[in-house]
């Protein structure tokens, strides 16, 4: 096992606390360092790892091929500036030395040696940052960003830069209410999880930060698993079943989602950080192998179906539980 692999395992946010999984409003305060059997994660709201440059290059490629992954309704410009000015200081603190933020009132200078970025802009002055604050933010962090506006007693997904969606489309969902975005998710309605989550988010006060995890599975280290590219990756769900490389190709995909009430615009900033670990990498931690095998075997069929696991689920369980 190489050093890079073990670092990935050590930092992996393994999401299962028990041998079964159901939907819940599993929010907890952010920035709680979480210890796992293999290492730990979770000290900050942003996460930079060894794949930083590669993932941002991939984001650029996705956006160049399909600009609809970045959406910003006109009234969300203030929120976009707010997200940028809230998170750049966080990134500077996370990577001191390689990133530098200099603030002179509203005149900000940003240097990022990891990417070779050097920009100066004036907060709120659109002309000083032509690509827009949301796109610029997305060029500096591995996370996907969704900005929710709060009005009329609801949350609205009115802006976002999402290049690594797991089977949804920011381009289609932009402008939907929170409840509408989650409309197609089955079973979750009976338990009231989504309305409770929305109520919780609407009560967040400026500066409050929470987080939760979400999971699914992806074939290959494919970050862009969006509805847009489904035509390309859909077949892999079937093809992987008979592939001897299955344990290297099938990945547990975990999203660490941070939920932040932005201080100036009052928008909710939703950061989605995607982590992929192959079954073989996962299996280097025996507890994880056993637990994920149990979760997958026990998962109700409709949930497995919604998560897109049905075709390869049995093969995955077989491999995980083989001694």
């Amino acid at each position: 096992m190489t050093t890079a692999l073990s670092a990935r395992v050590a930092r992996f946010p393994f999401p299962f606390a028990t041998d079964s999984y159901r939907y819940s409003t599993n929010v907890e305060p952010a920035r709680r360092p979480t210890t796992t059997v293999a290492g730990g994660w979770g000290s900050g709201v942003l996460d930079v790892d060894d794949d930083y440059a590669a993932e941002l290059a991939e984001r650029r490629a996705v956006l160049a091929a399909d600009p609809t992954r970045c959406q910003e309704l006109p009234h969300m410009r203030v929120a976009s500036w707010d997200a940028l000015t809230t998170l750049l200081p966080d990134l500077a603190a996370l990577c001191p030395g390689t990133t530098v933020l200099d603030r002179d009132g509203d005149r900000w200078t940003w240097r990022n040696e990891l990417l070779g970025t050097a920009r100066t802009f004036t907060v709120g002055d659109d002309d000083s940052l032509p690509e827009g604050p949301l796109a610029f933010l997305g060029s500096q962090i591995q996370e996907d960003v969704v900005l929710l506006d709060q009005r009329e007693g609801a949350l609205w997904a009115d802006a976002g830069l999402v290049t690594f969606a797991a089977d949804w489309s920011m381009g289609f969902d932009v402008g939907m209410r929170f409840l509408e975005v989650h409309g197609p998710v089955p079973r979750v309605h009976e338990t009231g999880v989504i309305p409770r989550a929305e109520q919780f988010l609407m009560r967040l006060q400026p500066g409050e930060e929470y987080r939760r995890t979400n999971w699914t599975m992806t074939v290959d280290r494919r970050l862009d698993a969006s509805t847009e590219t489904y035509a390309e990756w859909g077949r892999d769900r079937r093809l992987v079943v008979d592939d001897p490389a299955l344990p290297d190709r099938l990945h547990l995909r975990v999203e660490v989602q941070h939920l932040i009430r932005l201080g100036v615009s009052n928008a909710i900033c939703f950061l989605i950080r995607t982590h992929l670990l192959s079954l073989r990498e996962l299996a280097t931690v025996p507890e994880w192998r056993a637990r994920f095998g149990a979760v997958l075997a026990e998962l109700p069929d409709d949930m497995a179906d919604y998560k897109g696991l049905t075709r390869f689920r049995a093969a995955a369980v077989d491999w995980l539980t083989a001694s």
Partner: protein
Amino acid sequence: MGAEHTSVPRWGSERPAPDPSARTVLLVGFGARGCAITTAWSADVPGGRPVEVLAADDADESVLAVLTARIAGARVGWRLMLAGPEVDVLAARAVALRAGVLDAEIRCAVTSTDRKRVYCPHCRTTTATTAPVGEETPCDGCGRRLHVYAHVSRRAGAYLGFMADAEEVA
């Protein structure tokens, strides 16, 4: 199950009445049945309130342009009522929502849900179809067979489609 969370509009079995608190009302009827409804509505608008009625066969560019102009000149207290096939009502509603009209200021009566527009995320074109939700229709843009999904964009006035046989192909 989960009706209140779905993005697919549920129109209800009863036709809405004009909002009694409205100060001025714009009624837009699409097709013969839609226009019959707007005629009934204009009789129900509280007396003395200005009412304008637009009639069109469908939500074409010219009627949507008139709607846009009316919204730009309207004052708070204005209400919009739309009647006709779902595909036209959704298109007109999309224009109104994008112009800043609130859900609370719009009431809709849908006469049929046969026709719909389906958005293809693979080639990003929108196709008109009569396929029901859950079934398939070919995409005008890329030719793929699209599954018509129970997910509707209020901004686009369209259903989401995705490649129906993506997991089958070699």
